[in-house]
């Protein structure tokens, strides 16, 4: 603690704070670098995470020299289309916030409407409190948060859950960081109906869609993690596949890519199996290779789908 306070012996110049030492101490740069390396694209998100990290670090430095200030409100809202990495970033966020001393534990509790809202009168409040208690000291991630509020049913208990959430978000600010996540348009409707939540969330982060090149990079990364590889031929087919898939309905960014990859693995296994029954030998190389034909036989390339 005292090492960071770097006061010259002469005491003539004003005391300085060694932010660098604090930065190194918290190992924040490592997490941010990891975020940069392991997550493709998402430039605005990374920028915001960096800003938040800087802000927290400075707040901590201020607190250390005794400058009074309100503890910063760290509640966040992630909006973006499906598969843009909201949950992945939330997991990293718990890590970053813990290293910066904003939350005490690196733990993330992921919940949806079902975990918060009860089925009958008097069931909601204890249920919501239970979840909040479990998340205390860490990060509470509410996925598809807009489901909490259902305007079409005026007797819906979601409102009750929202009220308890708000109350705890305010009163236990030091114990808990709440992250809401959902699709952009529906979250906007949600916030319009619950202005109180919108104003209590300090950080609204928008997750952009991935570009074709980024998706290709993601595919390679995922494949490498599963110990598969592409050759030049299959990579070209994959690029073609992604370009077509983007314009089709129900495209869910990285999630669609993962599903495509899973299906390609299935076809690869099928192909190798069929060859083995014909009596052909399989080399070790072939076990890890996803060939062009594994991707090309996808439904996306069939003319009926492509129209």
């Amino acid at each position: 603690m005292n090492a960071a306070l770097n006061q010259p012996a002469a005491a003539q110049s004003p005391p300085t704070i060694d932010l660098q030492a604090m930065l190194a101490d918290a190992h924040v740069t490592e997490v941010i670098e990891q975020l940069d390396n392991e997550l493709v694209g998402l430039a605005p998100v990374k920028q915001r995470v960096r800003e938040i990290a800087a802000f927290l670090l400075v707040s901590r430095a201020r607190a250390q020299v005794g400058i009074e200030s309100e503890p910063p409100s760290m509640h966040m809202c992630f909006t973006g289309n499906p598969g843009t990495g909201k949950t992945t970033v939330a997991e990293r966020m718990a890590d970053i916030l813990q290293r910066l001393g904003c939350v005490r534990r690196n733990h993330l509790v992921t919940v949806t409407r079902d975990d918060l809202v009860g089925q009958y009168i008097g069931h909601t409040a204890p249920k919501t409190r239970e979840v909040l208690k479990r998340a205390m000291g860490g990060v509470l991630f509410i996925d598809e948060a807009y489901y909490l509020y259902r305007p079409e049913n005026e007797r819906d208990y979601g409102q009750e859950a929202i009220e308890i959430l708000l109350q705890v978000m305010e009163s236990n600010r030091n114990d808990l960081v709440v992250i809401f996540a959902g699709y952009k348009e529906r979250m906007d409707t949600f916030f319009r109906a619950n202005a109180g939540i919108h104003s209590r969330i300090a950080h609204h982060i928008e997750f952009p869609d991935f570009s074709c090149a980024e998706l290709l990079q993601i595919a390679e990364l995922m494949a490498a993690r599963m110990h598969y590889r592409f050759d030049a031929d299959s990579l070209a087919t994959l690029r073609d596949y992604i370009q077509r898939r983007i314009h089709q309905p129900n495209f869910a960014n990285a999630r669609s890519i993962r599903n495509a990859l899973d299906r390609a693995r299935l076809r690869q296994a099928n192909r190798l199996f069929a060859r083995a029954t014909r009596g052909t030998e399989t080399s070790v190389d072939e076990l890890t290779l996803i060939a062009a034909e594994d991707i090309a036989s996808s439904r996306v390339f069939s003319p009926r789908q492509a129209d």
Partner: protein
Amino acid sequence: MHITQGTFSFLPPLTDEQISAQVEYALSKGWALSVEFTDDPHPRNTYWEMWGMPMFDIRDAAGVLYEMNACRKAYPDRYIRLNAFDATRGFETVRLSFIVNRPAEEPHFELTRAEGPGRRIQYSMRTVRPHEGAPR
């Protein structure tokens, strides 16, 4: 009369910060915390009222203190204690238990004497609440 029982009975009442530290310790050992309350601190009154279920899935002291404060708010004039239950095989018992709340005016104990068959004298202790008045 300042009634003490449990783990830190020899200490002055713990502050919230100290309670929090004790809870952190219990959680780090994997013990489950629970909140209990009573209006009768008689030493033989082992089973206090439960405030909700024991908290088996809580990872941070803030959650326990949240429940403790809720109980304090509901029963400011009762005794409230925290128990830490160790589920490890071989223990399966409360490892830590201490009082976190006490009424402003505490009851005291009174020794009662009763004569049984054959002029045998039986002594027992009775809790006398503050406004119950002196016994005849």
